[in-house]
Structure formats: structure tokens, C-alpha cells
């Protein structure tokens, strides 16, 4: 696998599976994709009828998603260029396996503090 493809793959997996701190009114550890889902939902509500809070939440979720996304892109690029070719793949695989377990602390949910990636995406 080329380093470009390895970098892209690792970046996507980091976005989907790596828990990052989530700040705001409620806090937790979530993958960037959850921030994108929440930000997308609040953006949709804001588009239906803007108000201070939906705009604030949209900014909060998407702002954090952008920050972590950029950081992860840089990490993926660094790892893909410096590590042997199998390492990014191994790391991505490990992350994806870990993501199947409830390793995320997911605020704003109904009844669960810890979720797996499948529960986040269901």
C-alpha cells in the first residue's frame, strides 16, 4: 500500500474510532464522527429556524470536529511517512477492533454512559 493510501486510511479510521475529549455543557470521550453527527443535526435544526443555542451547539460540535480532524490528519500523515508500511494498517485494525467495545463516553445519550462505535452509528 502506498503511503498516501495508508495515510488516508489511517486518517479515516482515526476519525471514526479514536476517542477524543469532547468539551461543552456535557463532556465525554467520543470519535470525531460523533461530533460531526451532532454538529450536522444541530446545523439542520438551525437551518430550519436559527436561534442562539442551535448555532452555539453547531459551532461547538463542528469546531471541535474540525480541530480534531486536522490534528488527526497531521498524525496520520506523520505516522504513514515514518512507520513501516504495515504499521498504519495494524494501528487502524487495532483501533477498529477496540471501537467495537464500549470505550466511548457519550454525552447527550438517553441512557448509556459508555458506547461502542456500533451503538454510536446505529
Amino acid at each position, binding site marked *: 500500500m502506498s503511503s498516501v493510501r495508508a495515510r488516508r486510511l489511517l486518517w479515516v479510521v482515526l476519525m471514526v474510532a479514536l476517542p477524543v475529549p469532547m468539551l461543552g*455543557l*456535557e463532556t465525554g470521550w467520543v470519535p470525531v464522527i460523533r461530533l460531526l453527527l*451532532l454538529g450536522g*443535526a*444541530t446545523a*439542520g*435544526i438551525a437551518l*430550519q*429556524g436559527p*436561534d*442562539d*443555542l*442551535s448555532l452555539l*451547539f453547531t459551532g461547538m460540535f463542528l469546531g471541535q470536529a474540525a480541530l480534531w480532524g486536522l490534528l488527526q490528519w497531521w498524525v496520520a500523515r506523520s505516522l504513514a511517512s515514518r512507520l513501516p508500511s504495515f504499521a498504519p494498517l495494524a494501528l487502524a485494525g487495532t483501533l477498529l477492533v477496540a471501537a467495537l467495545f464500549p470505550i466511548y463516553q457519550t*454525552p*447527550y*445519550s*438517553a*441512557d*448509556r*454512559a*459508555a458506547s461502542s462505535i456500533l451503538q454510536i452509528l446505529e
Partner: protein
Amino acid sequence: MTARIRLTSAVLALIVALVPAIGSAAEPRESCANRDPLRRALYGDLHVHTTYSLDASTQDTRNKPADAYRFARGEALGIQPYDDDDRAMRSVQLDRPLDFAAVTDHAELFGELSICRTPGLPGHDNLACQVYRRWPRLAFYLMNGRASRGLRPAFCGENGARCVEATRGIWQRMQQAAEEAYDRSDQCAFTSFVGYEWTGSGGLSNNLHRNVIFANATVPDLPISFVDDTDPRFLWSELESRCRKAGTGCDVVVIPHNSNLSAETMWLEENPDGSPLTAEQARARAEAEPLVEVFQHKGESECRVGTGTTDEQCNFEQLPYDTMAAVSNTALRSPPGPNNFVRSILGVGLAEQARIGVNPYALGIIASTDTHLGTPGYVDERRHVGHGGAGPPLRGLPRGLPDAVEFNPGGLAAVWAEENTRESVFAAFRRKETFGTSGPRIQLRLFGGWDYPANVCASGEVAAAGYAGGVPMGGQLAAPPSGAVSPTFLAAALKDAGSPDRAGTDLQRIQIVKLWLEDGEPRERVLDIAGTPDNGADVDLASCEPRGAGHASLCTAWTDDSFDPAAPALYYARVLENPTCRWSTWVCNEHAVDCSDEGSVSEELAGCCDASIPKSIQERAWSSPIWYSPPTTD
């Protein structure tokens, strides 16, 4: 001619028969078997949330109004969390049924919740409803945020029509639940009231919340909510035109609560344009809001040490912040000021009375729980499960403190009424013959008059003498009769009788709180008039066993020797129990928390080691005041 006279007579007779029924809000029901002309103490809860409230539903409260009334009548009730089979993992039950209750769900989002929870209703599939179902806590912030600005979500349609229509269904179900719970038999075991909460906010989140309690089954076709208009004066005027003055038999009282979290905005002394209240405005306010909830789950609103008082009993169940937002956001916390508290505003009322001849703040006292679990009257310190007021959902059974440590189990509303019917209890609300307790079913009487004999307590006829010789709590002292120098106040209290498996706590003392005007400014004086703080009673904090003796009852006739007949004044009684363990101490003891070993204390029990939270409390009851106004010269 004779026939015409007969017809006219028949019509007149019909009118005469109907008018009292229309005007007095009387409802068809059997007479009570146990009517007491000297009135008896009845205990209830006038602040109860169920799953029809957004903040309750988003923390997974599933109990409905009918469930709450069943609980109030003594049945066991399941509460969250729920297992995978939707079975409640906790069950609670009162040790004694309540006498009355009102479910007061937040009216602002009845329609929105109904649409989001009912497949097939227009708007159900809207993104905002999907957020409600998938991320309820996010929906809590977003929907509450809009409602607190008087806005409806887009899925409500043009002018909010869809949500208004859906509100009608919820409102009817609430009325039906109250109707089904009301005991119309001659046993008069339980009285329910139709009610709701007007959930207003000012500024960022200055609490302006008020409960609206209707006298009977005749109510407006829709609740008047904060979304209709953000000004409480709109609420009062709408309730006047659509209820009290509608000629339908409808009557209503509005009961503000949590002035402690209002950032001093609950009791505005002037209009938005800076002009002072007029007599007409003051009268409208006083007629709409005869009562105030002085104590509940989120703290006490009577008074606070350092905000115009040095009364040491004003340190009871205080929250160290003064807005709702500060509950969850520590960055927004600032200390409360004087006008967060009812005692201060009672004094302002005296000044307003002197200025414009009307007291807008002649407030009677109650307390309640503000439960968000649908569990009215669940005030037991020993078995506190939290009330979940706008909190996050539980993730499994609580492993430590079941609630924010600064909160408490809440209190009870109490009335002196002839019988347990809507008519009798509501009449007590209107004449303010009410008192609040911090939980225990203490009985507290207060009468004011000019010639009570000194030995009235020994006579054993306190109530008869009290009514015959003066006015009860909530009343207005008559002008002093010729030769009278000072009023006498007859205060009597009985300790909570307890339940078969738990004795009530002894009383320690009765206090009188006197407020009066001097040079136009409110002054206060707090005196122990029966019992003593030095009775040596305390509580073993390790076992929570009370130590030392107190009183099963207290009674005294106290004369105000510093009475100034030219000064407006008011007097209310406060009775204190001997010290007992606070709810948090019970929980912390059960978990054997050792605060000297910080590393051993889990996050869920960290509140046990919060030095600002007392380990013991003195439960109490507050009477409504008795007012005195100097005779006018004109």
C-alpha cells in the same frame, strides 16, 4: 297571567339555584364524613413533574400524571433507571399517603413532546424530534433554550398550530388524571388539583417559574404558557379573563417558586420602564399570587445569612448560587442577594403597602418537592433517591450520592381546612391559612389577636380560642380595640406523629419572625417564644441516632411588647425540630466514606467531603404571616 307568574317564578328559582353553583366553583360530590369546623392540617405537594415535562422525560422519567397521583395516594411506584426489558430498577413508596397533590408539568413543551413521541403526528419525523429521541439531553438544551425565549420549533408549523393542537391532548389527559384521582366519596381521602408550571426565565436563566393551580375541574381550554407571552403579567391577566372573571366557576392561584435562583428578578419593584408599581398593578399581583413556595428540592428561599439578616437559622439548605444556569455551570455562579429571598420581599411588601395602600407581596407560605420522577411528597431524608430536577439521566443504579449534594428531598405544602375537598383546600389557599414544612408533617398553628388570655394553651382549646379571639395565619389583624396596647400571637405546634415503623422527631422551639417598617425601611426581629435552642439535643453523626429530649408539642401566647401601632408589621412562626442527619449523611454513612483518606473516596461520593454541606439539619415548618396595618386616618 298566573301562568306567566309561575313561569317567571320558575325561571327565577332556576337562576337562584344555578348562580351559587356557577359563582362558588362548587363541584358535585358527597359530603365528607369527617368534617372539622376548627379545621385540620392536611399535607400535600403542589409541585410535581412527570414524563410530560421535557426535563423529566429527557432524564428517562416515564411516570405519567396518573402514576404520580397513585403514588401520592400510597401506592408503590417504579422509577428509573430501567433495564433492557423496560422494567424499573428502583421502587419507592410513601410511608403515609398525602392528602392532596397537583401535577404541575412544564406547559411550554406539551405539544412538542407529544408530537415527538407519537408516530404519525405531523412533525414526528422532523430532525428536531429525531434529535429528541436519539440524543434527549441535546434536545433538552435546544428545545428548552427556544421555549425559554418564547419560541417554538419549526416543526410546530405556522404560528405553532401543530404544537398548540397537540398541547390540547396532553392538557386533557392531565385533567383526566386529576379527575380520576380525586376522591369524591364521603371518605374524602385524597384531593387532586389540575395544574401546570409556567416556566419563565429572564436574562440567561433567571428563574421566574410559577405553578398554576386550579380550584376545580373548570379550567381554560389550554394552559397559558411562557411561549404565549414572556411577561408574568400576561399570565395573571389571562388567568383573570379566562378563569377568575370568566363566570364559569373557574378559580386559580399562581405560586412562584425558587426565588433563590431568580437573580433577584422574581419580585420586581418597578415596571420595565422604571416607573413604580401602581396600586392597580399591586392588587393584580396580590390577587393572582397569594402564595409562595418557600422550600423545595432546589433549596430554601426564606432567607439567607448575609443578605440583610443575621438570623442563624437562615443557613438552612442554601444553594451557593442564584440562577438556574449556575446549577450545572460553575463559571456562572454568583452569590444570592437579598431580593432572592421571601423574607426580604415580605418587607418590601410592607413598604409598598405604606406607599400605595396595597401590598403586592402579601404572600402565604407553602413548600413542595419539585420532584421530576413523578413522586409527590417523597421527602424522606433517609431514603432520598434524588428528584432529578433537570439533571442527566441515570446510567445504572446510583453508586453514590443519588443527587447533587447541595439539593435536598424537598418539602410539603400544608393547609388548615375543614375537610379534604377541593373546595375546602383551595379556600385555605385563598385565605393563606397554609404553612410549609421541610418534609416532616409538623402541625403548626398561628393566631393573632388583641385579648388572648395568657393561659390559653393550658385550656386545651387552642384552635377554638384562636379563631374566636383573632385571625389565623394568612389573616390581617383587625385594628386594635380601645385600650389594647399590643397584639398577642398564639403559636402551637405538634411534632410529626411519624409512621408505624418510624417515630417523628421531637420539636426544639417555636420562633416568631417579626418584620415592620421603621423610617420607611423594613426591619426584622427573630425571637424564640417556646422551647429553647439550648435543650442539649443533637444527633450522633456516625449512627444518625438522635440524642437528647425535645417536645412532643409546644404552645405559647406571645405578646409583642415593642409593638408600634403606627408601623405596618407582619409576624410569622417558624418551628424547628431537634437536629437529625441530613440525607447526604445517611448515604455517606452507608458507604462508610472516610474523608480523612481522600484517595478512598469515589467520584460519586465526593460530595460527602464537601465542607460547605452540613452533616445535620433541623427540619422545620414556616407559617404564613399575619399582617398588621395601621388604621388609616381618612
